[in-house]
């Protein structure tokens, strides 16, 4: 039966736990003469059976374990920013820590993406033995032009930067002929793009797997929030007095909020029909208002992009500053929209009368939608400009000739501007605010208070930046390197801001629930990034795909060049029969896994009910009712003497007999009522 399978698995897991490290009850063990003599005896026996296989295996296992432990410690000491994150954890707890470790993850991801792009796309072009440069430019031009031009070029990705490895237009569509082989650059470009998207997906899914497992096991209802706060609420890592005070205040606030939530839930249950109608009507109106605001923002972005493209086309250099503003107009509008809308949403949600937990989540969803859709609108407006290329005489020539370069430039500008904004907000908004609060005596300043370090908004910021990076890497291959440097600097900026300028949010963000949330939003960004790449029509004048009708055509062209057997095999893989059967097999596998998960959940519920029954029967037995040993009836063969709940399990049973043992450590003597049992006796009972 499943049950017997379960307890057999449990006993074997206890045995396997025995091989993992356990707690040393050193006080009982090492301090006796008997132990010493036992060890002496064992050592002598070992010397006698030198060739004995088991001894050697045990020794080898211990040695390997020690080696892996040392390796792990070495590797973890090499992790980037270990001491900084340790410091932050001590001062602010695990909620804010999750933001910084997320940032570290993004730095690593961007670095890997850049290395992949560099090795497969840039390096072959750099070491090309026969470079052909279509665009010739005068070397001396650089010296004669005003230095303003250089800075403008650097900030907008145009001019001299168009003729570097930065942008798509520079890469050529021919094969690179090396002495040994020919390297098909278009194919490499396409495959590298697919590769880095797949790599990002796998890495994110791997990271979120742990959080997801826990999410599945959790009950749907808001469970145990009180127990969780009392028993797992205090962060034992906290070492500074101010952090302890903050933690205490935040726990207090959380408990009070929870009590308030209970009261509100009661109130909501008491709502009359008339109240409900009124509230639903109000919610519909407010949602329509929100949609209206979003539509206005999107229209502004569209208008700004169109204006910026047309202004660029006019090619009249008015003034350095005005030109810069024209270039950056879409970025400015997007940033403004992303700044104003969260404030608006947090005001609106107060009138919609949801439960507090739902309010936070809903506002966040709206902000995520706003941020990611603004990028989509930017791309859409560029695409609509592109459509007018053939017909409209005053459309942007550069856009029509090589639109990928334009898109790459827009993404580049967005990244640079994002970085500048983060830097300036920290320097010019938070810092003066802190000065104001500290030195100004007026009560208004005190009420305004220091800037709150709101984790969700900060996370949205970096997810937004990462989405731009993913979209932009196809059009601007050096963008991951720029993003790596950007996130590297942001770490130190945010750390400084956190320590000097901010106070932690009054409503603390839970590390466990946030882990899943960050990665979920990142996945949405990744999906958004896949779209423009999959529906692109390459321009004929520039770039690696100028010879093809779509960028995907590089694949069939490469397949054609393969030998006949490989071609047949790949044709088979691409045929309908294979696709359909693969799809069917995947569906079956998915159904199987879903069914398995459902079955596990059912078993867990059943076991939980059985546990309740055992405890109830146990208490009846202790009251004198004639109940036979309840535990062994309901869980045959699976009980410790005395039943659950009467004694604490021995720590030794959890850890196991890895240590040189004999005696076990008795827990604090007054707490043990039943006779302490030796580990092997315990294991025998379980069998």
């Amino acid at each position, binding site marked *: 039966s499943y049950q017997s399978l379960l307890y057999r698995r449990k006993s074997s897991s206890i045995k396997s*736990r025995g091989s993992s490290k356990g*707690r*040393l009850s*050193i*006080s009982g063990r*090492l*301090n006796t003469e008997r132990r010493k003599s036992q*060890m002496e005896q064992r050592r002598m026996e070992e010397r006698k059976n030198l060739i004995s296989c088991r001894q050697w295996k045990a020794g080898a296992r*211990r040695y390997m374990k*020690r080696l892996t432990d*040392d390796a792990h*410690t070495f590797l973890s000491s090499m992790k980037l920013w270990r001491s900084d994150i340790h410091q932050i*954890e*001590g001062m602010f707890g695990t909620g804010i820590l999750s933001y910084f470790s997320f940032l570290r993850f993004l730095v690593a991801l961007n670095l890997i993406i850049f290395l992949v792009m560099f090795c497969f796309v840039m390096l072959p072009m750099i070491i090309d033995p026969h470079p052909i440069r279509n665009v010739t430019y005068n070397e001396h031009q650089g010296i004669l032009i005003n230095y303003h031009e250089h800075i403008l070029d650097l900030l907008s990705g145009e001019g001299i930067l168009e003729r570097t490895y930065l942008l798509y237009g520079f890469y050529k569509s021919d094969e690179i002929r090396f002495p040994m082989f020919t390297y098909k650059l278009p194919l490499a470009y396409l495959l590298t793009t697919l590769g880095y998207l797949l790599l990002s997906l796998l890495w994110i899914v791997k990271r979120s797997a742990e959080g997801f497992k826990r999410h599945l*096991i*959790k009950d749907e209802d808001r*469970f*145990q929030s*009180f*127990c*969780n706060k*009392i*028993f*797992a*609420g*205090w962060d*034992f*890592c*906290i*070492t*500074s007095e101010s*952090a302890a005070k903050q933690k*205490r205040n935040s*726990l207090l606030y959380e*408990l009070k909020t*929870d*009590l308030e939530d*209970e009261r509100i839930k009661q109130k909501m249950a008491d709502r009359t029909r008339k109240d409900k109608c009124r509230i639903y009507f109000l919610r519909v109106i407010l949602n329509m208002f929100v949609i209206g605001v979003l539509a206005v923002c999107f229209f502004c972005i569209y208008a700004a992009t169109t204006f910026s493209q047309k202004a660029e086309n006019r090619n009249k250099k008015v003034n350095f500053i005005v030109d810069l503003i024209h270039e950056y107009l879409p970025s400015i509008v997007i940033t403004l929209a992303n700044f104003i809308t969260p404030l608006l949403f947090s005001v609106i949600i107060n009138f919609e009368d949801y439960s507090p937990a739902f309010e936070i989540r809903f506002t966040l969803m709206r902000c995520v939608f706003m941020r990611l859709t603004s990028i989509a609108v930017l791309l859409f407006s560029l695409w609509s400009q592109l459509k007018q290329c053939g017909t409209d005489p005053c459309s942007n020539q550069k856009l029509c000739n090589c639109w990928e370069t334009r898109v790459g430039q827009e993404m580049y500008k967005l990244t640079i501007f994002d970085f500048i904004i983060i830097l300036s907000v920290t320097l010019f908004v938070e810092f003066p605010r802190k000065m104001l609060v500290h030195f100004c005596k007026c009560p208004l300043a005190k009420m305004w208070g220091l800037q709150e370090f709101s984790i969700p908004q900060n996370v949205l910021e970096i997810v937004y930046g990462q989405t731009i990076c993913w979209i932009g890497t196809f059009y601007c291959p050096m963008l991951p390197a720029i993003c790596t440097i950007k996130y590297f600097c942001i770490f130190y900026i945010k750390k400084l801001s956190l320590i000097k300028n901010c106070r932690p949010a009054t409503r603390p963000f*839970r*590390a*466990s629930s946030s882990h899943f949330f960050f990665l979920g939003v990142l996945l949405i960004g990744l999906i958004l990034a896949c779209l423009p790449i999959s529906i692109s029509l390459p321009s004929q004048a520039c770039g690696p795909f100028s010879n093809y009708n779509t960028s995907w055509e590089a694949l069939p062209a490469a397949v054609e060049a393969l030998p006949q057997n490989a071609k047949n095999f790949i044709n088979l893989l691409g045929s309908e029969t294979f696709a359909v059967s693969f799809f069917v097999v995947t569906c079956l596998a998915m159904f199987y896994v879903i069914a398995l998960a459902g079955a596990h959940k059912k078993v867990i519920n059943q076991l*939980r009910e059985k546990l309740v029954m055992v*405890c*109830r029967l146990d208490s009846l037995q202790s009251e004198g009712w004639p109940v036979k040993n309840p535990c062994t009836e309901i869980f045959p063969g699976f009980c410790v003497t005395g039943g*659950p*709940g*009467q004694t*604490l*399990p021995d*720590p030794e049973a*959890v*850890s196991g007999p*890895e*240590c*040189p043992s004999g005696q076990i450590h008795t827990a*604090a*003597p*007054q*707490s043990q*009522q039943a006779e302490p049992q030796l580990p092997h006796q315990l294991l025998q009972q379980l069998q």
Partner: protein
Amino acid sequence: MGNKQTIFTDEQLDAYQDCTFFTRKEILRLHSRYHELAPHLVPMDYTNEPDCKLPLALIVDMPELKENPFRNRIVESFSEDGMGNLSFNEFVDMFSVLSEMAPRELKAIYAFKIYDYNVDNYLCKEDLEKTLNKLTKEELTPEEVELVCEKAIEEADLDGDNKLSYADFENMITRAPDFLSTFHIRI
């Protein structure tokens, strides 16, 4: 690394490494921390296993424990005499259980001991109230404290006896998502 030190014999260090979650270096570092607490009491040479215990008052003054509201209970649960006097082995024990690598089951056992103020193997309402007051430094009103403790027992109690046995506690703590990340001390 191990050849130059004279504090422990090699066998002792091996045993420590096998039985705790620390490496040799960390054991030596722990010993220096232990020694710092009372240089005149703690011998530098542990090869003949001296019987030396440090009182509670010295240990709760450590920076890692100073701000912890449960510091007294933590030290008491790891001491053999229940009064908080720790020998070096118990000291290492304590930090080993509270380290990142200890498994959840082990931490749950000790968490239960720590929160059990009257040491009766049950977390009754008084235990919870004491825990909550230590956590919030008595800034909740008594009615709020009572309400919170009632709700907590309601959430976790399976057998309906109005107090939490170890089974209830363990069942609850396995579903508490923050437990592993908060119940650890870095040393």
